[in-house]
């Protein structure tokens, strides 16, 4: 018999996945719960569009960091040159 152990088809994995699914579902329902009468950007997050803004900010940050890393390297090269002289 050609018995192959498939991780994705074991009982344990299936139970684990269903448990994980349950966690995600409860978490997402908690996330969307409106609390009190206090205004928050719920609509924005419900629409998922707040992530666009977060993405833009993260991209800007990555850009600035890349600039910083390049500046760092440039200074390292300069230091090497100074040491050689």
């Amino acid at each position, binding site marked *: 018999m050609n018995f192959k152990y498939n991780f994705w088809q074991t009982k344990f994995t299936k139970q684990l996945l269903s448990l994980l699914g349950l966690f995600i579902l409860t978490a997402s329902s908690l*996330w969307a719960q409106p*609390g*009190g009468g*206090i*205004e*928050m*950007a719920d609509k924005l*997050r419900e629409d998922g569009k*707040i*992530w666009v*803004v*977060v993405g833009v*900010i*993260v991209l800007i*940050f*990555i850009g600035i*960091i890349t600039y*910083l*890393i390049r*500046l*760092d*390297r440039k*200074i*390292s090269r*300069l*230091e090497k040159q*100074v040491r050689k*002289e």
Partner: protein
Amino acid sequence: MKLQWWKILTILLLIYVLIAGLAGEVPRQAILNETVRNLYFHVTMWFAMTTFLFISLIYSIRYLRSGKISEDDKAVEFVNSGILFGMIGFATGALWGNYTWGSPLPKDPKILSAAIAMLAYFAYVILRGAFDDEQKRARITSVYNIFAFVIFNVLIYILPRMTDTLHPGQGGNPGFNIYDNDNIMKPVFYPAILGWILLGVWITTLRVRLKKAERNLTEN
């Protein structure tokens, strides 16, 4: 060149702070609303500033003990970074205050003393320009730096606690903890403090290294 581990840590921490800080769950508070997230951005600027000024103080003391000009270079650059973060803290505070306290610059003791404390450090930078001799400049401004740090702490951390101020945790106001009674902000707030401090240290070390290279070039 390989990126040092703490620089990688800086990047990871700050990307986490940006994502979790902007889109994560925060306590629901009237008036504050979503602006409570500024805790991760505005408040951390002042933490970073205080850290840089403290590091600068240590280098000034080290200069006075050893007379090595490289120690003074580090002291200056940390003050520069401190001023940069302080100015960002001021600007962000004005924006935040405009929408929560109703005015960008309310007559608040903490804001006034922060402004005076910043002036003390502007004076440090101006004082440095007054000397031609390098050692003399370093010696006198190092001593001034020690005084400036003491004044800074009195103004920022002691005086506002003795009067009424709008800032949380002072003058009879409850601390920020009451807004965060579920502790859901701390997992972002603490990494944010560390991340912004590390970013400032990174920028400062670049300027220190550039200064050192310049110094080596002019000496040779």
